[in-house]
């Protein structure tokens, strides 16, 4: 007996593939956004004038309510800070050497001054994250 083979016509599901590719783009977009853990830390910015939008920050240092210091979301001691920031900044050009400081508004100078000194030693440009206050 002879069977007739049915010829299967397989069309690649282009629409589904585009959907998957699009979803992957979204996935990586969200992933990149949540990579900086400093967004989840508990701190309140100080109010001051002269705030500008920060573009493409490379390094962020956060000091939370409990005086704990975080470098890019990872807790760190003040002694190691200058060395780590130097490593992170590497040989980057001056325009990419911004170090964003997210310091809780009640933090005392005993904590935040050594941080600024460490950033300065590492050759970074300090950018204070503040809540813009209208000049009176």
């Amino acid at each position, binding site marked *: 007996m002879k069977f007739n083979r049915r010829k299967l*016509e*397989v*069309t*690649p*599901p*282009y*629409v589904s593939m*585009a*959907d998957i590719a*699009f*979803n992957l783009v*979204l996935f990586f*977009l*969200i992933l990149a*956004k949540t990579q900086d853990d400093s967004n989840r830390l508990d701190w309140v910015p*100080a*109010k*001051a*004038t*002269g*705030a*500008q*939008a*920060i*573009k493409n*920050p490379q390094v962020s240092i956060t000091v939370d309510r409990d*005086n704990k*210091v975080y470098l890019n979301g990872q807790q760190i*001691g*003040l*002694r190691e800070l200058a060395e780590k920031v130097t490593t992170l900044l590497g040989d980057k050009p001056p325009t990419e050497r*911004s170090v*964003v400081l997210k*310091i*809780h*508004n*009640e*933090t*005392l*100078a*005993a*904590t*935040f*001054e*050594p941080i*600024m*000194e460490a950033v*300065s*030693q590492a050759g970074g*440009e*300090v*950018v*204070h*994250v*503040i*809540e*813009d206050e209208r000049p*009176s």
Partner: protein
Amino acid sequence: MAAGPVGGGSGGAQTAWVLNLLTDLAFNLLIFFVVCASSAEDEKGRPQQMPSASKEKANEQKNTNIEVAIARTTVTVNGTEVPLAELKAKLQGMLAGKTRQEEKVVVVKSAKDTPYSQWIRATGAIEQAGGMITLQLEEEREVVR
């Protein structure tokens, strides 16, 4: 990008299939714009030019430059207490005749218990007045971890 249903089908089924795709697409676009909108909220900050803090350098500059001491509730300029609201005007007057960068250096000394909110306002006023901030650090400081 064209793709048709494999094997065709009745008109109604095909319409349903296309509608399904369009709904998918619309939903994906919606998520895309939501993600984009949420990431567009840039943080705001103030860049600060700060020469490397040096204890010796600060001591040398102490005699020639303006010295601003920031404490928990007060700000003093060369030993005279100045209300924070008047700091900018006061410094503008003091820096008025100075043209060289090194003359515009303002040595900032902070008490250990100075809160960041006070410090950022005072240093903001110094910068707005045209001063260049240099931190004067104490010799020994307890490291807070």
